[in-house]
């Protein structure tokens, strides 16, 4: 059967990536060391915050006494993040005051019917515990930390001691 080969080629030759995106990608490789530093900083905070938040969720209160209501974003990667000791997932929760905190987890399981996220985490004794967290209606899911940081833009949150921090993607 004859096909519209020439027409197809002419039509799709007009489909091009934006020059801005091309430049953005090239610029990202020129500055590739910087995001890793910010990632390590954030993940270090997240590792410290992990058990504190899970404990807080269990007790219905976060560090500083605020209640964490729902998960707003999470990253579940099949690969271990290089900056961590085996963690593959990063969870972001928000409290009733609109404040957010991120923490690491071993693995997560998304339940679309219940709109919940089951999160596994290690205790200081090396045991694995899990907790089921409610998801925000418009939660965001990512497959890599880089993608999460890129799409979320500047990520802000609270350290376990209550101090605020901000991580920017560049």
């Amino acid at each position, binding site marked *: 059967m004859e096909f519209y080969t020439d027409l197809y080629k002419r039509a799709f030759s007009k489909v091009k990536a934006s020059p801005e*995106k091309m430049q953005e990608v090239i610029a990202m490789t020129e500055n590739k060391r910087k995001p890793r530093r910010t990632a390590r900083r954030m993940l270090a905070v997240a590792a410290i915050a992990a058990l504190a938040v899970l404990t807080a969720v269990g007790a219905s209160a976060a560090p500083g006494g605020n209640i964490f209501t729902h998960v707003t974003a999470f990253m579940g990667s099949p690969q271990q993040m290089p900056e961590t000791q085996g963690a593959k997932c990063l969870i972001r929760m928000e409290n009733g005051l609109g404040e957010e905190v991120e923490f690491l987890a071993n693995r997560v399981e998304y339940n679309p019917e219940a709109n919940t996220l089951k999160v596994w985490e290690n205790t200081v004794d090396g045991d694995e515990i899990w907790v089921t967290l409610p998801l925000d209606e418009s939660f965001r899911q990512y497959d890599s930390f880089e993608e999460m940081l890129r799409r979320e833009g500047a990520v802000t949150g609270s350290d376990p001691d209550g101090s605020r921090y901000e991580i920017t993607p560049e």
Partner: protein
Amino acid sequence: MTAEEFSGYVREYGDMVYRVALNACKNPADAEDILQTALLKLYREKSPFESPEHVRRWLIRVAVNEAKKLARSAWLRKTLPLEDYAATLEFQAPEESELFLQVMALPAKYRTPLYLYYYEGYPVREVAALCGLKESTVQTRLQRARQALKQALTQMEEES
């Protein structure tokens, strides 16, 4: 890979990766994300490439796989009407725009084999390898895509 080599590959294959991604996911924003992911993976790839053609095939496979991963993801994005996107493209004749929209209206499984076969010029065997499909499956999909496209375009001609 040096920065100069990488910039050269971006210029040489960037549009191709974007077109593969757009055919696979039908969403310009997601296609740009796939483009970025594929190119960054290329930059970080440690294994040496044998030739520019090796890079080209590698990028196509990564783009196809990233699109599959995106389709499996629970992450859903709001999509703009494709007609709005088509209006931004510099088509030189109405039939180019019509064909583009009709191709994009085909089921997703037809679009990538169609692009690799008719635009990139890969034989069925190569298209099958790049898409992770059997050769017979690619042949069937190409045949059905041609039929569907011919039917749609003929109908449009008759109506106009």
